[in-house]
């Protein structure tokens, strides 16, 4: 999907110093009572390019455990994923690994 890889002007995000530089950032998708399980799996396939079984596995983890980490990397990468998830109507947040 374009939204996953879109180049963005550098100016758009202020330079930020991460509080704990060596810990990766995460994209967390949260369970919600509205989105269909089939739709959540579709979004994971479509946006992240996961195969069917990986998408189903992550979707089920969201559903049964309340949330799942679906990507890890730099803060900027995770923000692009979360923005894309919001575009699909999924409830997603950015956090640093090891955050409470």
């Amino acid at each position: 999907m374009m939204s996953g890889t879109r180049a963005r002007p550098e100016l758009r995000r202020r330079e930020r110093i991460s509080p704990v530089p060596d810990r990766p950032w995460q994209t967390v998708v949260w369970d919600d009572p509205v989105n269909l399980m089939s739709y959540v799996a579709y979004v994971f396939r479509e946006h992240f390019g996961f195969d069917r079984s990986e998408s189903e596995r992550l979707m089920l983890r969201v559903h049964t455990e309340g949330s799942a980490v679906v990507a890890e990397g730099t803060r900027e990468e995770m923000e692009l994923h979360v923005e894309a998830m919001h575009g699909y109507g999924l409830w997603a947040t950015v956090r640093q690994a090891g955050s409470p």
Partner: protein
Amino acid sequence: MRLLPLPSGALRVRLDFDEAHLLDQLTGQLIELLQSHSRTALDPDPLFASLEVGGSEATPEDPALARLFPDAYEADDDASQFRRVTEQGLINRKLQDAMLVTSELGMGNAPTEGDEPEPVEIEVTPATLSAWVRTLTALRLAIAARIGLDSDEAHERLLVTPDTRGTVLVYDWLAAILESILRMQTTPEED
């Protein structure tokens, strides 16, 4: 509603006139809601529109908008900053999706009086699929937020409450359309 997969990979969706009319009305309301939260006119260039900066900083008060544009961070500062750079682009992309659905439904012309209203046939192609499923989802999210449908238990309760029963039935009907479109989308080479 009836669906038929076409050899081209597209999907033909046949809606009764009343179904198409309802979907058109709901999508129109979604467009109004999004426009009410937008700070700029929609740039006619889709690329510029999708990259628009200049969102608000606070979580919207309207529960439907708050669910369509949730906080991306637990911390308020980070959430505000993210919202400022992403929200207007998200609004614009949701508007573009909803406008595509409206235009595909083509309900601009009301049936001539006396004529039997005819079913509406649309083709959901691989290129328009994401606009359809995102818009159906946005409608369900907005409806659920408005009536406080936040759990399975609430769904059952609202379904037997006279004031909300009709809305819940529409919400379930949108889910059925979305589910059917997604099921038909399962192409053999993906497995």
